[in-house]
């Protein structure tokens, strides 16, 4: 046994950055990539959707700086990333329900650093989903848009996923345990239909379209496709920002409600 020489009580330090570090990120990511459910949501589902929907008739029609194929590709990347981020977000509540958050409260890890870690993990997994969908799209060869649009759309999509990470945290707290994804999966699909991610809103009846403007997927889907379409109604921007704030507030509210037995 090598004797450990520890600093005296008075000299003890606190960790930098509230405990945020790369070991945490590495272990968190490794856990997710080992998880069959996450891999299906992150890689297989969006890739499959991109393959099937990307080839529908009319893909070669022009849209903005590219074609319909590119339009669908961007939408599918958004869907995949949102699903992934929501799934990562819902794990926060799951970890809390098994007492892991309480365990972490017995370490110097700052709650803000914990949430930051989860956000970085959600973004990384979201990026993985986006890249996967885009590689599939590239291989399929139907999407056509300038490289700059391609890259810009991917980056914008990545930032929009944060909204759904917050939604995941929120829903995870409201619906305990592993059931959160059973709600988030179909729920996000419904929101995607309503928000014009799967079918353009112009094809809906006016009533549905006006309802759609108020749903959470509408704003982000317009924003992610803006680099391609060069169209961004002001209310889409307001929608995206408002829903982001609503989900962040909801998640923060549920988490703070829950401090009795952390």
């Amino acid at each position, binding site marked *: 046994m090598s004797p450990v020489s*520890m600093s005296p*009580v008075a000299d*003890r330090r606190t*960790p930098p950055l509230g405990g945020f570090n790369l*070991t945490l990120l590495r*272990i968190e990511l490794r856990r997710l990539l080992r998880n069959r459910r996450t891999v299906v949501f992150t890689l297989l589902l969006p890739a499959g959707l991109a393959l099937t929907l990307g080839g529908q008739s009319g893909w070669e029609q022009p849209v903005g700086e590219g074609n319909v194929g590119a339009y669908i590709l961007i939408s599918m990347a958004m869907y995949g990333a949102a699903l992934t981020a929501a799934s990562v977000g819902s794990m926060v509540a799951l970890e809390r329900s098994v007492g*892991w958050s309480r365990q*972490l*409260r*017995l370490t110097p890890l700052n709650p803000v650093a914990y949430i930051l870690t989860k956000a970085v993990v959600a973004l990384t997994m979201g990026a993985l989903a986006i890249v996967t969908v885009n590689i599939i799209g590239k291989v399929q060869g139907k999407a056509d848009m300038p490289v700059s649009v391609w890259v810009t759309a991917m980056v914008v999509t990545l930032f929009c996923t944060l909204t759904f990470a917050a939604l995941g945290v929120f829903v995870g707290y409201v619906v305990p345990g592993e059931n959160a994804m059973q709600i988030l999966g179909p729920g996000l699909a419904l929101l995607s239909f309503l928000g014009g991610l799967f079918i353009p809103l112009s094809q809906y009846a006016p009533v549905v379209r006006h309802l759609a403007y108020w749903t959470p997927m509408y704003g982000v889907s317009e924003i992610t496709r803006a680099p391609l379409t060069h169209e961004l109604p002001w209310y889409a921007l307001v929608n995206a920002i408002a829903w982001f704030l609503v989900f962040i507030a909801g998640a923060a509210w549920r988490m703070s409600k829950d401090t009795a037995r952390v």
Partner: protein
Amino acid sequence: MSVVTPARTTAPATSAVRLDAVTKSFGHVEAVRGIDLDLAQGEVVAFLGPNGAGKTTTIDMVLGLSRPTTGTAQVLGRTPRDAVAHGLVSAVMQTGGLLKDMTVRETVEYTASLFADTMPVDEALRDAGIEAIAGRKVGKCSGGEQQRLRFAMALLPDPALLLLDEPTTGMDVEGRRTFWNAVRADAERGRTVMFATHYLEEADQYADRIVLIANGRIVADGTGSEIRALAAGRTVRASVTGFGAETEARLRAIDGVDAVDVRGEQILVHTTESDAVARFLLTETAARDLEITSKNLEEAFLSLTGEDQ
């Protein structure tokens, strides 16, 4: 389990734990109704009490997991949260607190990465005797293995204060003995240990001091034998030839005597001052075969916490 060199202590005057008039209410429910507690560094203290007595609520406040409604809690002269942030206090919880899909090693690595000063992960695994199962998923570990993992995590920062909530639940007799020997060895090197337990014998055997808590208050505080004496005193039994009314009156007049039972030559005296009674019987009467027995801790516990009513 542990061979860590525990933290050298600061000035001996600094209490490991100091609670001043601490109360905690949840809505209208008063879980803790005013607790004063001062633990010196290096003490091994058992926190004993029935379910709902306020043990866990008090431990939560010492760990900074919740704040006292009134009063103050201090750990090693700091606020509880500050003590946790500096790695000065750790805890081993009874259940949960682990992620099933992480491996044993990942769990220890994850925890170690959060402390500014920590012992090496390999060493922590070896000390806890879980080196061989380091690659195993936590969900596939037995209850005892998970408990050893929690212990390894708690010792990573070499805490000056270690809190254990029902630490040996799910351990077999041998595991329990090994565990306590490790804890005792640790305490001898200066680590303060406070544990909540339902095993009364465990409190009696392994703690220097027992703090008995019932209905949110401390009802007794002392060594195991003091607690027993406090609860119902001791019974002094002797055979006395020619025990008369006058002797009985003198016996009853001794401080602390609360019952005298005469059965022929057999005299039974219930008292909190067994020494005085024994001295009287042996010097002033013809008593022989004198015997002093105390209630066991279980009986003491029940009578102090009012559970027997």
